[in-house]
């Protein structure tokens, strides 16, 4: 911060530098400290160096305009669905993965049940004394003694 910038910021935020918002406050205090002499505290020196290095260009008035435009557009627009944002979150992804796993598990059980249904029905038919017609059942009844025992 130069002397000119300091004076401009003083007109903006008042005479008491300590009440200025960050990072204007630290920049002003650094300027005043430089004018008074070298800084003794190594941590304070590093903090000032970090602040100076971090500062970049930016238009505060443009930021305010964009925020107000966003607020106005939010008022006019209908409320967007929360689903896409939810899906992008890690919790959303985990929930989707869990749902997919559950669906696959249920589908697996269903398919397995379909396969199990055929022998079960044939065994029931066998128990009730019906004629065996298909190949699997014929194999089961190749031994005549077994057939008698049934």
């Amino acid at each position, binding site marked *: 911060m130069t002397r000119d910038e300091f004076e401009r910021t003083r007109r903006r935020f008042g005479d008491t530098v*300590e009440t200025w918002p*960050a*990072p204007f406050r630290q920049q002003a205090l650094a300027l005043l400290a430089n004018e008074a002499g070298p800084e003794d505290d190594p941590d304070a020196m*590093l903090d000032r160096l970090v602040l100076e*290095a*971090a500062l970049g260009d930016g238009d505060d*008035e443009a930021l305010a305009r964009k925020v107000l435009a966003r607020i106005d557009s939010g008022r006019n627009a209908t409320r967007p669905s929360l689903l896409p944002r939810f899906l992008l979150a890690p919790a959303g992804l985990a929930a989707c993965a869990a749902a997919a796993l559950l669906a696959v598990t249920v589908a697996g059980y269903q398919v397995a049940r379909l396969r199990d249904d055929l022998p079960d029905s044939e065994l029931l038919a066998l128990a009730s004394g019906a004629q065996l017609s298909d190949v699997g059942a014929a194999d089961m009844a190749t031994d005549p003694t077994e057939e008698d025992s049934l």
Partner: protein
Amino acid sequence: MPAAVSHEEPRADDDLLARIAAGSQGALSELIARHGRGLRVFAARYLGNASDAEDVVQEVFVTVWKQAARFDPARGRASTWLYRITANRCIDQRRRRALRSFIGLDDIRDEVASPEPDAEATTAARQELAIVRDGLARLPERQRMAVLLRAVGDLDIAAIAEVMGGSVGSAEQLLVRGRRTLRDHLAMAAADRERKSS
């Protein structure tokens, strides 16, 4: 041991938030004029991406507009509340970036102007700033956040702990480690320069 900053409590922010809660857009503009730059610098250096930082800070002030009534001056300073919202948004943004990068939608690039020390300028002071920027970018995320909250936000250890959702001790440790790493980085760069010049 980092010293806590002792400066007068800016009551102006509390008043502005009360006016924002009452629906004053003028008060919001004033709050942005006071804190927009600090929040943007913090977000840009934490995220390493100026465009993401701009978006995050806009979101923060939209959130402030909607939730100003929830701010309780008795529970803490307005600036701490603002940095807390910003830090949380930055973490969310970083996760979104990482996820998008993971599924191949985009890549993470450092888009904040961080030129190479040698290319940036010939003066030693500017080279030093570039080295600090490089050191900041290399810090672990939580150390970087602690260092930036201290240097840019001018928050004391208790406020840093509140923003980061941890204990005072852990915040202090993060700050101490971050500063030490930065100093080591600066010392190594200085030694490199000396070696090259000799």
